């Protein structure tokens, strides 16, 4: 059974009917996507707007909770896209997860401190081991140098 538009409109929950009565959707009225003055014609009821005289920021007419309630209800009745832009470009349901930006920690995790300093420490040790003979020669004198040279010369090989 197909519904007439009037019948279908009455199928909407009362909260949505009231909202669309007060704030007609896009082709009939346009709403700002950025905060404007509260007196502006296109003032968005979901955004924080500034009073023209006092210059003070006023809370949105629909609080964050009521915005989200309205959106979820409208989504179930297929009219979510008729609502004005939500505060902070808020997303719901699967879209919320799909549009989520990949966090830096996911792509390049920080790691533990030992992990972060591992290669640096290893190279430092290797460098120090390379220099160890020179240091010992400096400390113990030429006699030790000669001993090292003799050992090198007398080193047994398989050939």
């Amino acid at each position, binding site marked *: 059974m197909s519904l*007439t538009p009037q*019948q279908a409109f*009455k*199928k*909407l929950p009362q909260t949505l009917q009231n909202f*669309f*009565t007060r704030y007609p959707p896009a082709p009939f009225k346009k709403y700002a996507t950025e905060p404007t003055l509260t007196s502006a014609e296109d003032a968005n009821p979901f955004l924080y707007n500034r009073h023209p005289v006092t210059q003070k920021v006023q809370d949105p007419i629909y609080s964050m909770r009521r915005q989200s309630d309205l959106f979820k209800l409208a989504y179930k009745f297929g009219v979510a896209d*008729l609502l004005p832009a939500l505060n902070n470009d808020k997303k719901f349901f699967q879209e919320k997860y799909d549009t989520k930006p990949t966090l830096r920690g996911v792509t390049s995790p920080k790691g533990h401190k030992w992990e972060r300093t591992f290669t640096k420490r290893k190279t430092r040790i290797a460098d120090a081991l390379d220099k160890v003979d020179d240091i010992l020669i400096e400390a113990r004198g030429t006699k030790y140098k000669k001993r090292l040279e003799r050992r090198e010369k007398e080193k047994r090989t398989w050939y």
Partner: protein
Amino acid sequence: MSSKVAKAGRYAANFERLGYRASAFQNMFQKGQLPFLRDGREPLPEAKQNQTMEDWKFVVGDRVLLTSGPNKGTVTSILSLQKSNNSYFLEHGQTKKASIPFLLWERQQESYLVDYPVPVTADSFKLVTTIKEEDGTERDVAADDIVYRGKYYDSDYNKMLPYRCIKNHEHIIIPWPRPDPITDDGLCTPQETVLERTFFPDSLVSCDVSKEAYLSLRDPLAKRPYKWDRKVITKSDLKRLTPPKMPFSETKKAFFKERADIRAKQIKEISPEVEEFIGKKVADYFSKIQDPDMRYYLSKMAGDQKKKGKKSDN
């Protein structure tokens, strides 16, 4: 005396609460009294004081025969009762000379010295009554002691009283003396018309009594109101309770105007074009739904459905 002090309220000392220190305070109290009023007897505790006519046995107006003291043998009557000591003031009883300060003189008093009656206890006199002999002559008899037998309603006292009989001669009933007749005040309702009904309400709902008179009508079950619980706001009260009206500032006026403008701008009724636009979209969406559970859910959430449900609940 102590009962009087106790009944005097929170501004007077209650001697019974003082315990062993009470006698010191009593002495102080006695010293403060006029000398002839100091009888040297301590007042009885309240539990031992006579309360009812049955307790007293002899009441004001009774004829009595003195059995002790200088006036022994005379027949006189009881003038008044001294409650603090369960004693009686007699008309021709023993008196003592008392000097009264000028400030306390009675109207016809001519001397500082007066005869002040000494209160006597019940064991210093006997109740006298008149009995009729068989030959018609009358004679007075004094009762050694009296006993109570049976009860009757006494219309003068307006209560049940026992018959006073002479002990061991219980056929002789000594009637209670008649009290002084009560004279009606000018504002009293006469006894004949007190039960006469003068007010007939026309309706149970509306009241004939004017609204202004409501506060003057007393609730018969209500206790006497505390004097500060006034239910009437007087003119001066009203003046004090009403704050002065501050004139609204320009800012406030601008705020009111802005709020009124916002209200005036608000769309209260949906236009048919908007309704059709949204309705089409909703109808389209409804037709595409295949899931029966979702269809059921949306039908339950629908605005018209909910209204029906609410009505049926009521």
